[in-house]
């Protein structure tokens, strides 16, 4: 019977091509716009580092060391600490793992000075590679001893190693950073988080994670003249704005991230930070009550508006638009089915049950829905292409994925069925006798 209904649906579609084109096109536009918005939303939501970022939390507090008359309120949680506080928190080893880090951007040159590259990387205090799950291709991360002794060592990523040395295995070689030789102890696989969440003040405007091309211990870097991208928040007496400055002793410029496995551990850690911060406030190092707060990665990204509002807005809009298209198609389908009431009544008079008529019409709308899905495929592709052309930070997220294709087919089938229920129900309610009398 199903095959017969399919056959019927096909024949009916061929009978009224303009109408079918209109119906499928409307569905396709609705599906395509929804799927375009969904693809981008999907790419930007979710964990930046699957399996790792759910355990990460950032420490925030009001750690200003002097009263600031112009801005006495602490409006937004502040993740920047100075080197002393960040170091103390990391050295305390109260979490499973802890790292203080800051975004840096510097020139890295090979010893001959032939190849050189402006690279983005992290200055870190603590086991940054292990905590963020950065995979190593060669070598090892720096050790606690090297960090303590401020040995100039660095981990660079495979792409940078190839650019500088022509080979990925650059372990044991040295590179010039800020006028000093750093020994490459490890080569990491090219790594970036799916979305940006580390050191957001210095990565403003980024939505998608950017590759971190090198990892270097903080103190060794500072000693060599490699500083963070911006100096961070500096007290009076330090430069107001300075790029890649190493004069950061009066500044708060490092973010402290910790890995905590359970809510209980998180609570205990928060209490530890509160007591530390309160002690600093009592000792006069912090001018204001510290107002310590810990943020998980998702909450931190939301607080800092990493994913722009228009991503969600567009999804809401596309959803509403799809709904409008559904109502529209339902109306047109009802008109289409009811126009052929005579056929239905004859079938009914010949013994078809309501259920048969219902099934037949539902098959027809499902076929139309799938046709709409097929049509939506190029339209979605077009939609994503348009997004890629847009001057937005998330343009690179607009790529068609196999997941999206599966979602598309499911969505179109669902659309076809949902849209068909009302008209099919309406048409199968026709009593047979009435129509025969009329005709």
């Amino acid at each position, binding site marked *: 019977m199903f095959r017969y209904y399919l056959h019927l649906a096909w024949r009916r579609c061929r009978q009224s091509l303009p109408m079918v084109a*209109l119906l499928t096109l*409307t569905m396709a*536009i609705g599906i395509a*716009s929804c799927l375009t918005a969904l693809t981008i939303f999907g790419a930007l939501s979710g964990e930046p580092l699957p399996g790792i970022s759910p355990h990460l939390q950032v420490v925030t507090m009001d750690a200003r060391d002097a009263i600031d008359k*112009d801005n006495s309120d602490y409006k937004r949680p502040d993740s920047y600490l100075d080197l002393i506080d960040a170091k103390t928190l990391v050295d305390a080893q109260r979490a499973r793992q802890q790292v203080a880090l800051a975004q840096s*951007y510097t*020139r890295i040159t090979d010893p001959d000075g032939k190849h050189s590259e*402006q690279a983005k990387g992290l200055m870190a205090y603590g086991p940054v590679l292990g905590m963020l799950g950065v995979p190593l291709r060669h070598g090892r991360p720096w050790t606690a001893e090297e960090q303590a002794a401020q040995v100039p060592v660095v981990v660079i990523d495979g792409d940078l190693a190839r650019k500088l040395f022509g080979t990925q295995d650059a372990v044991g070689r040295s590179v010039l950073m800020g006028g000093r030789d750093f020994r490459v102890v490890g080569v990491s696989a090219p790594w970036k988080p799916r979305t940006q969440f580390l050191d957001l003040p210095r990565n403003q405007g980024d939505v998608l994670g950017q590759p971190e091309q090198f990892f270097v211990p903080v103190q060794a870097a500072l000693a060599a003249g490699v500083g963070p991208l911006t100096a961070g928040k500096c007290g009076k007496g330090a*430069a*107001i*704005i*300075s*790029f*890649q*400055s*190493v*004069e950061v002793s009066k500044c708060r410029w490092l973010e402290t991230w910790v890995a905590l496995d359970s809510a209980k551990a998180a609570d205990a850690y928060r209490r530890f930070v509160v007591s530390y911060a309160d002690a600093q406030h009592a000792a006069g190092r912090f001018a204001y009550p510290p107002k310590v707060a810990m943020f998980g990665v998702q909450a931190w990204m939301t607080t800092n*508006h990493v994913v722009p*509002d*228009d991503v*969600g*807005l*567009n999804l*809401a*809009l596309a959803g*509403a*638009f799809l*709904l*409008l*298209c559904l*109502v*529209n198609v*339902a*109306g*047109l389908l*009802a*008109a289409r089915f*009811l*126009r052929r009431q005579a056929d239905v009544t004859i079938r009914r008079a010949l013994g078809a049950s309501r259920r048969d008529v219902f099934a037949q019409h539902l098959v027809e709308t499902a076929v139309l829905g799938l046709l709409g899905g097929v049509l939506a495929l190029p339209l979605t592709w077009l939609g994503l292409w*348009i997004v890629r052309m*847009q*001057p*937005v930070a998330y343009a690179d997220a607009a790529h068609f994925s196999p997941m999206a294709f599966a979602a598309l087919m499911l969505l179109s089938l669902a659309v076809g069925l949902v849209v068909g229920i009302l008209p099919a129900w*309406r048409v199968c309610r026709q009593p047979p006798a009435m129509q025969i009398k*009329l*005709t």
Partner: protein
Amino acid sequence: MSIRILFVTLRRHSLMPSLVLLQVALACAILCNVLFLAWQQLEPILAPSGVDAKGLILVDQLNLPNGAWTSAEVSAGTQALREVPGVRAVSAGLGLPMVPSYLCVMALQGPTGAKVGASCYEGEGLVKTLGIQLVAGRDFLPSEYRDAGVASKGLVTPLIITEALARKLFGDIEAVGKLLGDPGDKSAAHYQVVGVARHLLRNQLGMANHGRADDTVLLADRVGKTASLSYAVRVDPAMRDIALGGVRRAISRQFGALLQAGYLAQVSFYSTRRDAAFKTRRAALWLLLGVTLTVLIVTVIGIMGLTGFWVQRRTRQIGIRRALGARRVDILREFMAENAFIVSIGVTIGMVLAYVGNALLMKQYELPRLPWEWMPAGAVLMLVLGQLAVLSPALRAAAVPPVVATRSV
């Protein structure tokens, strides 16, 4: 008579009208919100800049590694730019129109108690260099300029504000010569208005909406020691391209060797900056207009399709009414009235939906409340659209001859 027929028909056959109604309600809700979003993108683009854009060159991104430019370096730069052929005026500035790399913001409180947060531009001779039109008062006197960033305890700072700001802070009172306070420190008056500009678009473009585009203040500050440096350069419009090249060369001669590695000074016309600054807005605007257009088309097609079907089903009924003496225009009017009735109910629901939708979006995102005026505007748009969409089926209905009444189908 015809009104009763209308109601009876609608009650008997409720599927088609209710689908039209639902469509109109949804479309109305979407359109109100989309058009409001589009307006927010459009507002800063439409706002008058207040500067003379012809022959205005902006220079910024002069970033020094580890430290700040000295006053001498800043004025040497100004001098070098003055010597470029075609240049008429040069000002070193902190915070310049369309240059968001440095933001200067301040809070003002007027005698009425009104508080306004404003963007500020600092620099010597900005009125002349930017080509700002003053409608009242005067430009700063050379003696009024002080070094930027140096604290001014107890001094009353002269200000030039815009007409829009004057209205917000003083109401209808003449602003020139009046004092303004700082809401953060109510002990004394801090500022005195010396001049009023017609317009001056702020460089915080994200806040240049809801009538806040002109909340801009000029400060009598000379750029002294500074980490971030920018210049406004007015050139002869007839020589603008030659002058641009000259300014570029002067900047790279003066600052090139000192700049942070990997950073390049930006030297471009105001119009170029404006295009770049509004690029994302324009793109978003096109997207929203595309959505609007698609929603309109889909709705029109829906209404036409459903009404067309309805006309077809009621052909016999129309024939009978014609045979009983109804004129063509009566039938036409009946379908138009019916559509107007259905659409009216639809837009009423739609306005509620628009409000609810906006409230939901406000909860999720930083979005302002939909002003109520937008909802009747959307409703009227839908009504006109409905009448247009129904025109063709209604004309077809009016063309039904009375003789149809005598046929059996």
